[in-house]
């Protein structure tokens, strides 16, 4: 059984069906990429999984337990961390305060700050600066580091490469890959940058207008000329 299972999930914004009958699964220690153009429903899919939006139908199961109807703050406590689009760092708080916030509900069981700083040495240098003063790449690292503070089992990442220089994107992708392979996290990676996402993912799902139009091993998706031309843009 996969750690995170999404079954027939449908989410509507009023008359607009943003996510339409999506089924996918993420195994422990693996990365599943969700690809597609703007407006394909990728962000809504993540927001529904983490409880920020209520679906019209379908199921989300973490380790076999239903998450639909569970409140956002309790879904976090089940071990699911969502790193939102635009990074979601709280600009008015310092780097260290942002990090501490991520582990507060865990109390003494939270990851030590020094472990996160070892993973992101840049953040250690910026620990007392306001998050507002960080660069795009640093904010992304802070956002991921903050999610890791609570020892999640599943990580939802929304466009981690958005607005980053290619070299920084490569660093972030390498880190995500390490988190899955070495720490055993199940990662659901939403990306417009299909090429870099497929380079680290085991499996990929392509969304268009809320529906799954392709689902396969990452290598097979990357090799599909028709799919690349129609949806992936590389």
């Amino acid at each position, binding site marked *: 059984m996969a750690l995170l299972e999404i079954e027939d999930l449908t989410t509507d914004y009023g008359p607009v069906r943003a996510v339409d009958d999506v089924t996918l699964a993420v195994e422990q220690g693996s990365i599943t990429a969700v690809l597609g153009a703007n407006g394909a429903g990728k962000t809504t899919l993540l927001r529904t999984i983490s409880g920020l939006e209520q679906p019209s139908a379908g199921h989300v199961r973490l380790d076999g337990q239903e998450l639909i109807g569970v409140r956002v703050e309790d879904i976090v406590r089940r071990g699911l961390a969502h790193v939102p689009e635009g990074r979601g760092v*709280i600009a008015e708080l310092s780097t260290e*305060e942002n990090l501490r*916030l991520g582990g507060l*509900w865990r109390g003494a069981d939270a990851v030590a700050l020094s472990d996160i700083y070892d993973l992101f040495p840049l953040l250690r240098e910026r620990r007392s600066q306001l998050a507002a003063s960080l660069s795009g790449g640093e904010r992304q690292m802070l956002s991921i580091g903050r999610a890791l503070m609570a020892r999640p089992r599943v990580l939802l990442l929304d466009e981690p490469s958005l607005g980053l220089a290619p070299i920084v994107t490569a660093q972030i992708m390498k880190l995500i890959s390490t988190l899955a392979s070495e720490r055993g996290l199940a990662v659901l990676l939403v990306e417009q940058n299909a090429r870099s996402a497929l380079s680290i993912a085991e499996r990929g799902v392509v969304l268009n207008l809320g529906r799954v139009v392709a689902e396969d091993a990452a290598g097979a998706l990357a090799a599909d000329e028709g799919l690349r031309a129609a949806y992936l843009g590389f």
Partner: protein
Amino acid sequence: MTRFIDLTLNGISTGAIYAVVALALVLIWRATRIVNFAQGAMLMITTFIASSVISSSGSYWLGFGVALVCGLVLGAVVERVLMRRVEGGPPLNAVIVALGLLILLEAIAGMIWGNTPRSFPPAFSIQGYDIGGTRVLFSPNDTFTVLVVIGVALVLTAVFRGTAIGLKMRAAAFRPEVARMLGVRVGRMLTLGWALAALVGSLAGLLVAPEIFVGPNQFDPILVFGFTAAVLGGLDSFAGAAVGGILLGLALSYVSGYEGSSLVTLAALVILIVVLMIRPGGLFSSTQERRV
């Protein structure tokens, strides 16, 4: 010179009261990003309750304690029942609801306790200290007021800066959705913020009541002065609110002493406008952005 010293001492003690009101406003602002224009009416209710308890039991400190507890409960109820519905909406909605609450509470108070202001006892003697045979305009009760302001500012700063609950409250105020995604129970934090602010507000009511008496509309100017003090301090800083309150108290005391007391409210508004024009972030502002 004696007159100047007297006016200065008087400014410090009245400024300390504005500072407590400012602290309550800053607390709600930091915890929920709302300016609570009903703060004056809320502290009026708790001060009336204190007045009733004191006159029936004869114990000042029992009334004092009851007022603080009532403030805590009133703040939580106001947030749960009223403000919860407008949180996250346009800021003006919250302002209108707060103004509605102000009118409602003043009307209710008038119905229960009548519209004639009644006297209220001070915590300690209001007779000025005797220094070298001269009575100065500063009493043990003023000392108590100033100490309360310093204490409240220090405690609030310590809670917000140094504790986990303070961090959660700030996160919930700045980015409620992100805070929830990190496991913060945002609703509870907002309720707590209102409860604490109303507690501080009721403290302000108890401190100011001996001077202005207790009546449904007696506390309106205090809210204006408290708001001015909070803006002086930048709305975001507890220390700023405390210092802003004292500065305002001094300024108004000099205006009242040298120019006449009828100009006091006007002077407060002039100070408010000048500060907003020259330093909209307040004298102690740490951030550039201002949403109100």
